[in-house]
């Protein structure tokens, strides 16, 4: 668990992060969104003390981070950034092994961990372990960057726009993988993103930053249904609201008894996918794999506040 209380950062006397307090429960994902320059990166970097707070506190599992030597603190916290920052002169395996090596794990443990992580990220250890970073695609480099951040099994992972440079198809895959791995490992995750859709997809809670201030911190559904300020509303984009709302729920959750014709949609497809399918195929109801139907009427009801 991570508790941020009254955290402030001043640059040249001006607050860049202004009295921010928020708590992320163990195993949850908090997504930080906001316009450019709103202080997201600064807030994130104060958690692992890459930036020293001007005032306020960060507690991790109740322990004040200011009381720990910064480099020791950082070895306990996974950190992945846009542009991955892999060490170009080290192999994939050596890159992933960075923090375990710093923590003096045994060579056997390190080797086993590298292979385990490569497998987790669907990269064949034998094929990738000894490659150099420049021999990987951008998407693969990004995965290695995240694997490296997770190598020493941190309880807390910080990510700054990790998928910013990926194309939409690979990004969607990377997001799904991240969500699955995070659930599997039970890691607490703080994620900075520009992309509201990404925040809604991944975040258990979304923190909206505006000019250094935290203006709303709530689950995605609440943010969408009841934006706290016009700024939050603008950030969501009024034209996107119903679609974001629908994307929060999988189809099987609202499936009801009934009969519908045509090809069924997958259980895990979102209501947004279901709506798109209704419109495209001209149907008023769709069968859901594994039983039940989703009706256009139900979708309409779900898309309104």
């Amino acid at each position: 668990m991570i508790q941020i209380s009254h955290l402030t950062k001043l640059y040249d006397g001006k607050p860049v992060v202004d009295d921010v307090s928020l708590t992320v429960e163990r195993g949850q994902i908090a997504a930080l969104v906001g316009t450019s320059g709103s202080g997201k990166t600064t807030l994130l970097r104060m958690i692992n003390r890459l930036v020293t707070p001007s005032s306020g506190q960060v507690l991790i599992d109740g322990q004040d981070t200011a009381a720990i030597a910064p480099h020791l603190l950082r070895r306990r916290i996974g950190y992945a950034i846009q542009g991955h920052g892999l060490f170009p002169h080290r192999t994939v395996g050596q890159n992933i092994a960075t923090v375990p090596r710093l923590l003096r794990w045994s060579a056997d443990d390190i080797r086993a961990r590298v292979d385990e992580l490569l497998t987790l990220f669907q990269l064949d250890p034998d094929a990738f372990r000894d490659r150099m970073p420049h021999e990987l695609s951008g998407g693969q480099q990004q995965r290695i960057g995240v694997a490296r951040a997770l190598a020493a099994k941190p309880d807390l992972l910080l990510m700054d726009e990790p998928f910013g440079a990926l194309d939409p198809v690979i990004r969607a895959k990377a997001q799904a993988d991240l969500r699955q791995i995070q659930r599997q490992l039970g890691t607490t995750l703080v994620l900075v993103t520009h992309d509201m859709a990404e925040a809604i997809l991944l975040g258990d809670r979304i923190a909206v930053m505006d000019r250094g201030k935290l203006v709303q911190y709530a689950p995605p559904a609440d943010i969408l249904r009841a934006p706290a300020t016009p700024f939050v509303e603008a950030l969501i984009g009024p034209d996107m609201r119903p679609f974001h709302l629908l994307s929060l729920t999988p189809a099987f959750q609202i499936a009801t008894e009934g009969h519908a014709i045509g090809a069924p949609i997958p259980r895990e497809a979102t209501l947004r996918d279901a709506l798109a399918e209704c419109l495209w195929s001209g149907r008023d109801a769709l069968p859901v794999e594994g039983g039940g139907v989703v009706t256009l009427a139900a979708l309409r009801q779900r898309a309104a506040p």
Partner: protein
Amino acid sequence: MTARLDRPGLLFALIGLVGLVLPLVQFKANRIVPGDGVSMALPLAGLLALILLGGCLRWSHGLRLAAALAGLGTVIAALGGTARALMADGPALARVAPAAGFWLLLLAFALMLTDAVTRLRPALHWRWLMLAGAIALVAMVLSTGWLDQVSVMREYAARRDAFLREGVAHLYLAFGSLGLALMIGLPLGVAIHQAPSARGPVLSVLNILQTIPSLALFGIMIPIFGWIAANVPGAAQAGIAGIGVFPALVALFLYSLLPVVSNTLTGLSGVSPATQEAAIGLGLTRFQRLTWVLVPLALPVLLAAIRIVLVQNIGLAVIAGLIGGGGFGTFVFQGLNQTAMDLVLLGALPTIGLALVAGIALDLLVQTLNHTTPRPA
């Protein structure tokens, strides 16, 4: 017709043919008077002309390499042979010095050789082997004694011990000043990388040092160090003196600082910000960031600096001969004083050889490292 001809080959042939027309050696009554030109034996000259003209054709690179080697061998053999023949019935004081013809032919075939090697694009390990082979070949030719009657080798024979001693002194000056420059320059480069505000002043001072002509620098140092040696207790015992090895070493060291410091800075600055941020974020200490990440990534640029400095210092160390610092320069300045060109050559030729070998070896080292640690685009 011209399409069938090889342009570089034409140039080499032109240089070589001019060399064939000019005298191969100078036959002198003694080591300081000018002598008479003597040309190469006609059959050998004919053979060389054939090789040179053949080099104008579109030969395969391998054949070109073989031809260049054959040409070089023939020129060397002709030099030694002519010297032997002339000295066999000449007076003991007479000298046979290589002349314009020899140097031009040497140049022509050396260019042909380099050109052939460049076009062959041999793999890295082959280039290492070629360098080692070339050194071994030169050593072998010299040890056979075939060239012993050539004037430079006569000078060598007269001062074998001194040659060895000055050779060691020369290497000591070049490598010693490089070592000093690395010991001071690397930390200084790292320091101004960490403290950007100090970059301007430090680099300007080093830039000014670099522009002082070497003779002027010695001129300044002789009174300064002389005064220190005379007036500071213990200084003279510590080796500080106005002339000799000490000021020579200091001068070479000062000239080496700028390339070392500025390349260290360039190398470190070239490491991408994302890589550096990741290194901090993962919990590397300041020292670990330097040794695990920054220095390895800056290494190719650092090696480039070492190459520049080493080649530069091997050449500049000649000047040390002027102030009693030792090295091959001793022969050069002795020779200039006595107007004995052969003695000048005895100092100049090994200096050029050392600089060439050092330059090529370090180039290969840089490429070998770049091979194993590619840098991001």
